């Protein structure tokens, strides 16, 4: 037995092809997810150098960023060209590819897990920062830029320095009305949008163990918003139960061997992290962002903070700017902020449990007059399942729109965009200026809070609708 290691170091060590002097390791990539927006220049680079895709069998392509969710026709010629380019590239290199309109299409980070394609101990990369989602399976998963996409296509490896490690431990039991999204927002508010920069985070604690795989994906998805390179959760019975029987999960004797390996895959007692943070979750309530970076979040029951309350001059200036952009005054109760749009979807909160949580709140209620609500399943498989459960009827009866799958309003690359100055309660992951449309004002919330806000026409929690606070 060597020294005590973290799960992060174990996965890392397991994937080092070789180590160069100077501290850079050549890391093997088990799964490469590709989408239309970050890949064309990478494929083009291969072509110019006469290179091929080394392991098409470890590569999966999806169309998610550009695609409309109200029709199968991409009106925008640039968006269409990008999708067509991806189709050509996948055909040329023999890469499996889920096209817009097909039964398996969806957001990369929703599609891969539901196939059982992401398993504990793997390395996963994608030209997308929210690749951290897959850490929920105890995989080391991180986003890369287009040059690195090209590198992985050509070599199935990446030269990387071993990341620093950080432990985020949740202490206490999560209150019933607090969702994984609230936990994620609370952690980022606590450590800052820059708080985990350069680190891979392991989340642990009883509160994490109690969360479903989908909730874990929500938490790991948001790791990048704290600046982390990746975030992961050690596999346990919940992980194994989720994977069992999935299309690409191991089966038969392979399953037994895999499950035995997964059981051992955890941080050794006494292993040291470069940083450790403990967050007490027992007193938390639903969270909401008020500003334009992810550190700018408070409890839904609180008020917009006064920029003067920030000691760091950079954070103070950022708060002043954010309030101006958001059209909010210090001291305003978040619950009094009226919204005109609600977006339920994205790789953070577009899974079946998210849809169920929102449908439960909407059932027997209606979306407030003047508010439009988009419900966008994260994949066509999620959509199919929701329809099987009748959730779409709850959404439609409440007056919400029931869409096809895609990234949709999470970012302004497709036709689902906010128009000048509109304010949205959104289950996505970024509240940046203009992210959801020109001058769009974003309040990030959980699916349950999004649904309650749709009914109230202002930011609201589900308990409020029931007469509580």
């Amino acid at each position, binding site marked *: 037995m060597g020294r005590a290691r973290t799960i992060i170091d174990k996965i890392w060590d397991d994937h080092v092809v070789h180590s160069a002097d100077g501290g850079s390791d050549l890391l093997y990539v088990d799964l490469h997810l590709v989408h239309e927006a970050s890949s*064309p220049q990478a494929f083009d680079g291969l072509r110019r150098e006469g290179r091929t895709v080394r392991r098409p069998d470890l590569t999966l392509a999806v169309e998610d960023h550009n695609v409309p969710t109200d029709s199968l026709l991409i009106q925008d010629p640039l968006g269409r060209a990008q999708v067509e380019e991806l189709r050509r590239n996948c055909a040329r290199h023999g890469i*499996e590819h889920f096209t817009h309109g097909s039964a398996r299409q969806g957001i990369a980070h929703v599609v891969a897990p539901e196939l059982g394609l992401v398993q504990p101990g793997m390395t996963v990369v994608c030209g997308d920062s929210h690749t951290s989602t897959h850490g929920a399976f105890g995989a080391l998963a991180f986003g890369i830029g287009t040059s690195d996409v090209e590198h992985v296509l050509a070599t199935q490896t990446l030269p990387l320095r071993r990341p620093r490690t950080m432990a985020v431990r949740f202490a206490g039991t999560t209150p019933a009305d607090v969702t994984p999204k609230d936990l994620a927002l609370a952690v980022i508010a606590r450590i800052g949008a820059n708080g985990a920069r350069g680190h891979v985070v392991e989340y642990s604690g009883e509160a994490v163990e109690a969360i479903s795989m989908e909730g874990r994906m929500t938490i790991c998805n948001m790791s*990048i918003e704290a600046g982390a390179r990746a975030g992961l959760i050690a596999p346990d019975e919940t992980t194994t139960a989720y994977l069992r029987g999935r299309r*690409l999960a191991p089966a038969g004797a392979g399953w037994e061997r895999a499950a035995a390996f997964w059981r051992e895959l955890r941080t050794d007692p006494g292993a040291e992290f470069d940083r450790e943070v403990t967050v007490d979750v027992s007193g938390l309530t639903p969270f909401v962002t008020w500003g334009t970076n992810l550190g700018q979040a408070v409890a839904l029951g609180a008020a917009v903070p006064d920029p003067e309350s920030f000691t760091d001059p950079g954070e103070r*200036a950022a708060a002043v700017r954010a309030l101006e952009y958001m059209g909010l005054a210090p001291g305003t109760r978040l619950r009094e902020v009226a919204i005109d749009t609600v977006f339920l979807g994205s790789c953070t909160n577009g899974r079946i449990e998210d849809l169920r949580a929102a449908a439960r709140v909407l059932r027997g209620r209606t979306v407030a007059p003047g508010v439009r609500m988009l419900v966008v399943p994260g994949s066509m498989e999620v959509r199919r399942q929701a329809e099987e459960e009748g959730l779409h009827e709850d959404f439609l009866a409440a007056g919400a729109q029931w869409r096809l799958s895609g990234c949709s309003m999470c970012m302004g690359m497709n036709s689902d965009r906010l128009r000048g100055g509109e304010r949205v309660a959104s289950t996505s992951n970024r509240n940046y200026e203009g992210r959801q449309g020109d001058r769009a004002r974003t309040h990030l919330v959980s699916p349950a809070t999004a649904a309650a806000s749709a009914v109230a026409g202002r930011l609201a929690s589900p308990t409020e609708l029931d007469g509580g606070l």
Partner: protein
Amino acid sequence: MEPLTEHTGRAIVLRRDHVDTDQIVPAAFCKRLTKSGYDDALFAHWREDPDFVLNRPAARTASVLVGGANFGTGSSREHAVWALRDWGFAVVVASSFGDIFLRNALKNGLLAVALPAETLGALADAVEADPDLAVTVDLHRLELRAAGGCHPFTVDKHARFLLLNGLDDIAVTLRGQDAVLRYERDRRPWLPSMAPGSLTGEPMSSRGRR
């Protein structure tokens, strides 16, 4: 790529923390198929404000951008780096960078230099006091020189090696393919694959993979 050892140029200051890549290049510009021609995209929304620093004449000839904390946070879009480069920036100085941005920058020969917050503040003050101030970033000696000051910085060793020698990262990696083949022989047999047929027919393990 041409070897890169040093850059000297005039600077402009963008005094904002958490400048995310959605601001550097808004999503609407990420639909192109090219790796260049993004100068129109750079800070497109912020440039609608006539007082924005990029709208000042000095910005046209500046090649060094002095930012704040957590520069380039957020989306992995490499377009952010291409746009800065297309505008004419060769160097971005900040007190910290988004991880993926930092990697993307060095991959494209855009020198991303992190300095301690106080040093950065003093540099920003000096640049604002004298827009003609020459700022030199020396990748060989790993120091930034300006206004008589000399400030050490660190850069990822592998990235520095590639830049100093003008090497293609992929070509360097491809030279070590024997080790990759050896590694692949020992990969765990149950690991998933998207090989033809994986989505149809029988489940993974019964297909007799190696």
